[in-house]
């Protein structure tokens, strides 16, 4: 019997089975793909994080301990590939006489490096001028001293005579923050920036210079063991973090107090594990709704054939079939759907993964999980309803084509209100500034996630679906006069009849409307989130790099107007914006000061309103333009100094005419939170003309080059050739790959394409497929109307009216829900954005394409139904 039933099913209901299996396929494929992407992303995060570290451990030798013993212990540890001793000494100041003037600096650090240090830790030192051996000056130090290779500097020692050294090169220290960390100190006690003055010496020279200092001032001289570790870490950042910190703790135990481990590897993995958790949350927020929607689509497709299934069951029961046999037959159908859908889904995931995400395949664990979901969806959508009908329905009720549908119980309205109110409450809670979805306490192995955050979107999804259903039901039940008016253009004189039919057979229409609304909401929210993510990643890159191409000074601190003129002539350059970069003391606090041209910086620096508070970017630049001594400060500075608009702020700047400091009055005009090339902490923005006049120098520190968003790398290469090694040239595409967290460094483009592709397919299927199946259930109605003399146009009126209703009601509900979900997702997941967006980015092109494809799918379904309705009615009735 089962074989006969199965063969009949495949022969007669092949199309419907295929449609149901397609729903399962979409759910399985989406889960597999996102799961595969998640696994790959985590592994990428780990490897990318590890790559950013050059010195894995900086082991600080304890006071009184023997550096050689510590070195020997570290070298003997499992996993240590190389360990080199590095001397750290404090200098009370540097001095250089160049160009007939004497430059002096404040205290600084002098490092003693072994000969093979640069080769062992290749990311630590980048040579800008001269060669990489001998006495090397950090770029900023060289700028402060106006020193270049060949010049002589004096290194002052506390209580001892200064030592004169000849400079061999100028270098950049890309990882200076970790290089000069305070080992063992908690994050809040770490210095906010590396020292301004840094000299690197060969180890032998360093010992010659500072060994005498170690005796009277041991506090100024210390040794670190810089260690390179083998990176056989687990791919998951959390597991890798645990393994890395475990090794570091083990080392400290073995050192028995002789050394303290500065665990750079653990620190980056600590950040990566939080990012990995965010990636997982992204998966949950964006992927799971898609899979649930695909499951709902499967249910709707299966449900569209429920009437027919009930009739078949009724027929079988009159022939003596038992409930057990009926359930057995439904189980066969469910298994066919599950096997076909799961196999198709895994194949689709493998194909799409290879093409769009460049993954090797679906990981076994995810394939198994997705298969389980596929079988679950098939069971829940095919077997369970059939089992319910077989147990509960009578033969008479099974034959019923259209029964009166009662109004939803009022409790549903209450439920929708509770769900939406709950969602709003979570939204408000996550809108507060202190909210953080993921808390990653430094130094602890555990991460905490605010799982309540999931409740916001989940409640909104559920509440939105229930409300869309209730509203559509209300419209169909009570709004028949309105529907009649709406249907008149398509249905003409039969508008009332069509409205009555749609109202009484509203189950299928409601399914179509709600599913279309959810699919539109999924497509819209996913698209808006992804495009906001892209927008913010771009903002981050622009903030970090400053412009398409950015040129900064190297040694003389004055990239001047001549350089700007040279750059303006480079093909592809549209505008060159000079920005002064100085250092100014606010009280005892040294801050970066940027001198800008207020009229042109807004467009040249791509300034956004979100960078400022208390006004728009243009508004605050206008204030600067109107008042030459206006000053924008960071929120922290405004708070620390209790500044109010108009207050005078006195900054100490270096006067180029005297070489000494000079106090210059400014007036507080507003708060700046972000600025191109500026550090994330405190900085100042003022008029460049005022700074030039008051300091006697119009020297420009940075040139922001606008290339119109194209050819950045070729313009950067040309700029390097034109301006020589003293100019530090960076371009936007290169910055994108090195900035931000490991999460933003992960290319989400493939995932976005996949998600948006699936969203498009689900929206089209929710509209077209579900409508087509619903209309297929009306073939009898249309055939009978045709027998009664209804003409082609009148039959079309039935179909087009319903299609238009589904499109308008589903689209409207979907637009509102999609907009709400977008706001919610961007707010709840604000932690993945750096900086947080001031407003969401709406990808109109994609949304219009989705709308067009969905309308086309609805139109295709309606067209097919109309075509079917024009067949000879007797043929149609005979087949039903």
């Amino acid at each position, binding site marked *: 019997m089962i074989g006969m039933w199965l063969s009949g099913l495949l022969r007669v209901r092949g199309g419907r089975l295929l449609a149901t299996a397609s729903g399962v396929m979409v759910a399985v494929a989406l889960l597999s793909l996102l799961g595969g992407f998640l696994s790959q992303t985590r592994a990428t995060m780990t490897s990318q994080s590890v790559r950013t570290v050059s010195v894995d451990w900086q082991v600080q030798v304890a006071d009184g301990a023997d550096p050689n013993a510590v070195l020997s212990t570290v070298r003997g540890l499992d996993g240590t590939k190389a360990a080199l001793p590095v001397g750290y000494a404090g200098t009370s100041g540097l001095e250089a006489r160049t160009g007939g003037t004497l430059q002096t600096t404040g205290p600084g650090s002098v490092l003693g490096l072994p000969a093979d240090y640069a080769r062992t830790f290749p990311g630590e030192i980048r040579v800008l001028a001269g060669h990489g051996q001998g006495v090397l000056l950090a770029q900023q130090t060289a700028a402060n001293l106006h020193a270049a290779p060949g010049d002589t500097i004096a290194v002052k020692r506390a209580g001892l005579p200064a030592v004169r050294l000849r400079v061999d090169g100028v270098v950049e220290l890309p990882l200076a923050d970790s290089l000069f960390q305070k080992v063992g100190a908690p994050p809040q006690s770490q210095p906010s920036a590396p020292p301004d003055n840094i000299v690197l010496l060969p180890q032998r020279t360093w010992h010659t210079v500072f060994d005498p200092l170690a005796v009277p001032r041991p506090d100024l001289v210390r040794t670190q063991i810089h260690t390179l570790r083998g990176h056989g870490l687990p791919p998951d950042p959390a597991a890798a973090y645990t393994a890395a910190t475990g090794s570091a703790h083990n080392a400290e135990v073995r050192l028995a107090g002789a050394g303290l481990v500065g665990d750079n590897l653990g620190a980056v993995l600590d950040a990566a594990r939080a990012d990995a958790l965010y990636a997982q949350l992204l998966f949950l927020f964006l992927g799971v709704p898609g899979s649930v929607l695909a499951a709902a689509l499967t249910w709707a497709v299966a449900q569209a054939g429920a009437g027919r299934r009930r009739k078949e069951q009724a027929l079988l029961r009159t022939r003596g079939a038992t409930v057990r046999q009926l359930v057995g037959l439904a189980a066969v159908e469910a298994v066919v759907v599950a096997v076909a859908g799961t196999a198709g889904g895994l194949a689709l995931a493998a194909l799409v993964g290879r093409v769009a995400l460049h993954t090797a395949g679906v990981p076994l664990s995810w394939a198994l999980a997705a298969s389980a979901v596929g079988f679950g969806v098939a069971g829940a959508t095919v077997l369970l309803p059939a089992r319910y009908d077989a147990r509960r329905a009578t033969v008479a009720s099974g034959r019923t084509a259209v029964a009166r549908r009662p109004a939803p119980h009022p409790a549903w309205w209450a439920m929708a209100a509770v769900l939406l109110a709950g969602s709003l409450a979570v939204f408000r809670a996550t809108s507060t500034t202190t909210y953080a979805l993921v808390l990653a306490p430094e130094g602890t192995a555990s991460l905490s996630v605010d799982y309540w955050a999931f409740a916001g979107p989940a409640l909104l999804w559920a509440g939105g679906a229930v409300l869309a259903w209730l509203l559509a039901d209300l419209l169909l039940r009570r709004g028949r006069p309105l529907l009649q008016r709406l249907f008149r253009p398509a249905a003409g*004189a039969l508008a009332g009849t069509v409205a009555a039919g*749609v*109202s009484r057979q509203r189950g299928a229409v409601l399914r179509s409307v709600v599913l279309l609304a959810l699919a539109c909401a999924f497509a819209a929210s996913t698209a808006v989130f992804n495009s906001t993510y892209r927008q913010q990643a771009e903002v981050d890159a622009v903030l970090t790099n400053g412009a398409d191409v950015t040129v900064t000074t190297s040694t003389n601190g004055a990239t001047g107007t001549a350089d700007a003129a040279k750059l303006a002539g480079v093909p592809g350059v549209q505008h060159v914006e000079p920005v002064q970069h100085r250092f100014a003391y606010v009280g005892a606090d040294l801050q970066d000061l940027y001198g800008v041209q207020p009229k042109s910086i807004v467009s040249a620096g791509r300034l956004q309103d979100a960078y400022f508070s208390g006004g728009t970017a243009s508004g605050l630049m206008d204030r600067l333009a109107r008042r030459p001594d206006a000053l924008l400060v960071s929120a922290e500075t405004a708070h620390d100094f209790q500044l109010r608009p108009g207050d005078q702020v006195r900054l100490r700047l270096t006067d180029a005419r005297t070489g000494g400091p000079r106090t210059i009055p400014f007036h507080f005009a507003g708060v700046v939170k972000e600025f191109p090339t500026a550090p994330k902490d405190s900085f100042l923005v003022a008029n460049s003309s005022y700074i030039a006049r008051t300091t006697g120098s119009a020297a420009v520190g940075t040139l922001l080059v606008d290339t119109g968003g194209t050819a950045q790398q070729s313009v950067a290469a040309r700029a390097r050739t034109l301006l020589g090694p003293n100019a530090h040239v960076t371009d936007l595409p290169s910055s994108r790959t090195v900035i931000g967290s490991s999460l933003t460094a992960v290319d989400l483009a493939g995932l976005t394409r996949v998600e948006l592709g699936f969203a498009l397919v689900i929206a089209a299927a929710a509209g077209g497929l579900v409508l087509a199946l619903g209309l297929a259930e009306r073939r009898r109605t249309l055939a009978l109307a045709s*027998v009664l003399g209804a003409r082609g146009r009148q039959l079309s009126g039935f179909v087009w009216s319903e299609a238009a209703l589904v499109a308008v009601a589903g689209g409207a509900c979907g637009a509102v829900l999609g907009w709400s979900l977008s706001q919610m997702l961007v707010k709840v997941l604000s932690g993945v954005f750096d900086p947080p967006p001031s407003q969401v980015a709406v990808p109109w092109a994609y949304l219009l394409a989705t709308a067009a494809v969905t309308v086309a799918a609805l139109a295709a379904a309606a067209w097919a139904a109309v075509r079917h309705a024009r067949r000879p009615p007797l043929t149609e009735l005979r087949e039903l």
Partner: protein
Amino acid sequence: MTANGTETVTPGGEQLVVCTDAARTYGTGPGAVVAVHGASCAVTAGAGIAVVGPSGSGKSTLLHLMAGLDRPTAGRVAHPGLPEGSLPRHIGVVFQGPSLLPPLTAVENVALPLRIDGVAQAEADARAFAALEELGLEALASKLPDELSAGQAQRVAVARVLARRPRLILADEPTGQLDRESAGQVMGVLLAAAATLGAAVLVSTHDMRVADALPTRWSMADGRLVLPDGTAEEDRAEEDRAEERLAGKRRAGERQEREAR
């Protein structure tokens, strides 16, 4: 008795339907099934005809050809007394099985053909309700088809035909799925209403009691239409022979099937 091929016109007035060697074959090649062999007949205004014959003899197909719901594969079916472009308006068809539109109430079902014809909503509703009232069904006006018994549904289907005031009513086994009492009621209202409207009635049936209610009887067997020209006894004897032939064929078929097993 005149067999197929010779046109026999039922005596009376204007010809509403004329079949000339009309045949209907389903499928092609060796598997083709001839449902109606070249049938020639005519139905005139005011006629009352019963087409009798066993199930599968081609009665329904003949009615569908006459109603314009199907096209002959050979010969022709003409409607000289009816405007060709609006046959559904003038030919009412009562089907064998459920034929009410499931999502519409009884009164909406009855009003639907009128709305299709362009009758204003209010007038269509009034005429539909009057038709239901005429058949004593006004209490069922707001019921959905699934809330009606088979007999009630069939009477509503009759009301739907009558509301349109057709000139020809074709009823295909209208009592086929009804018990005797319901069948009597349906035929009673059908014939009474037809008489009131002055419409011709052609009823296909295998129930002789139904056939006896009509003045003229045609018979069908194996897709061949036989029109009466002899005595009533001769006609009935011919019908009996036709039924016997069909029963013999069935028995032979069943025997072959058993042997094949």
